[in-house]
């Protein structure tokens, strides 16, 4: 059952006040301006056993994404599409507040929102990942592990998935005598667009981009907006217990387009991919 009891870091009263004061003057405690992202870094292909992998750092939030490709039956109702499965886990290594055990609702939301952005933007052309229509398709697992947390896990995880997909190599499978054979050769994945997730949070009446853990502990509401390469919207998730006015939503949506384009260019640069 979903409960409103919070298990985030505790920010002292004075620090909270200081943060609100600084933010109302258009600055932030870590020296950034309101709409400034933290540095984004990506290391690719760090797991040789995976078909593609990436370690992404967004400030101090760190996520590893690994891709494993197999073959299997298609999903019910999607018989002529490859299967894409995205999962996310916050490892107990990531912060003193995380304990081992089944995922809590926040982690489930994380995985589902990241999945929604990639899936709805149709980044991977799943129509082209079918071996025997209705019977055998490519099954692509993208598993993410958050190894250190400092806020905005939604974007950091999404960037890790995108980086891993941009740099992965799919094995080429063939059907011989009704059986799946791995040819040992690889191909680039069929990509159509680069989705970029941008998370903004409202603290008081001010909206800031890419919150740290400390800022998230003080936020009133959160909104995550994913855009594709055309600048269209593919997914949105409002989170946390506060609301947004209609104007704030429209402004946030425009901001997600502008910032999304910058992050997209950065991700392309980091992965040496165009298009």
């Amino acid at each position, binding site marked *: *059952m*979903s409960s409103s009891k919070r298990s985030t870091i505790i920010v002292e009263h004075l620090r909270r006040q200081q943060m609100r004061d600084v933010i109302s003057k258009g600055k932030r405690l870590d020296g950034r301006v309101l709409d400034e992202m933290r540095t984004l870094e990506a290391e690719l292909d760090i797991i040789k056993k995976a078909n593609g992998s990436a370690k992404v750092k967004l400030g101090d939030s760190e996520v590893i994404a690994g891709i494993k490709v197999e073959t299997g039956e298609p999903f019910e109702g999607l018989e002529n599409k490859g299967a894409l499965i995205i999962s996310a886990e916050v490892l107990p290594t990531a912060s003193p507040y995380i304990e081992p055990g089944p995922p809590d609702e926040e982690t489930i*939301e994380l995985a589902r929102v990241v999945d929604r952005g990639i899936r709805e933007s149709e980044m991977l052309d799943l129509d082209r990942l079918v071996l025997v229509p209705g019977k055998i398709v490519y099954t692509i697992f993208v598993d993410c592990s958050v190894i250190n947390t400092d806020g905005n896990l939604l974007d950091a995880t999404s960037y890790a998935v995108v980086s891993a997909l941009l740099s992965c190599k799919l094995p080429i499978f063939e059907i011989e005598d009704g059986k799946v054979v791995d040819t040992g050769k690889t191909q680039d994945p069929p990509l159509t667009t680069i989705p970029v997730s941008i998370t903004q949070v409202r603290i008081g009446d001010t909206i800031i981009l890419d919150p740290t853990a400390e800022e998230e502990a003080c936020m009133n509401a959160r909104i995550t907006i994913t855009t*594709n390469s055309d600048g269209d919207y*593919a997914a949105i*998730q409002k989170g946390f217990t*506060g*609301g*947004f006015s209609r104007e704030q939503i429209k402004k946030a949506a425009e901001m997600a387009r502008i910032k999304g384009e910058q992050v997209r260019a950065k991700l392309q640069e980091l992965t040496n991919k165009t298009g």
Partner: protein
Amino acid sequence: MSQTRSLIDKQGKRTDGRTAEQLREVKIDVGIIKNADGSAFIEFGKNKIIVAVYGPREVHPKHMAQPDRCVLRCRYHMSPFSTDTRKNPAPSRREVEISKVMREALEPALMLEDYPRAAIDVYVEVLQADGGSRCAGISAASVALADAGINMRDLVAACAAGKVDDKIVLDINDTEDKEGGADMPIAYMPHLDEVTLLQLDGILTKDQLNECVDTAIEGCKKVYEIQKQALMQKYFGNEIELKEEQP
């Protein structure tokens, strides 16, 4: 999601005969569960959902209690017989997420600081699902909370808008959700002009997004009127009729 057939005919009618801006039929009954402190039953198109509210009451387990405010707990659950293929009764990841966004959609309306050390439990049971069940659930839950006498800043009304055949339409039904282009559920507090739930899946351009938000909010305002009516009916039922009779 690619669309295979046309979902709006030449007269501008949708699969269930509605126009683009038309809401499905919404009916809310208040106080349908005797044991609950507050309850509501909503029929939102073919959705049938019951909501029971218990609380403010003592928190169990006790360590969950907050010294300065009330704990709000929310469970969204679908009955195994509510869908085309039987749904496993164990809570799915989807239900966990919806329980969370639902709680976050309701919380801004509640004056939780008025009930320290207590808990309010909201149980949303979907008996029959027809697309847009989270919106229907939120709308009913906020009525049930009001029925329980919880101090509230506003009612939360919820309604989805989406894209069908490249057109923005109000209140997506099951078919449109599965075959259409985009779905955007919104929960909104009309009196405070605050959006408390917003999700989107599917592609929308910049202009479509703005139109979709505006359309959904208009829908929420219609739901709001029905919610108020339902509460009035329960608490002032006879008085309303008397007033209407007098010239």
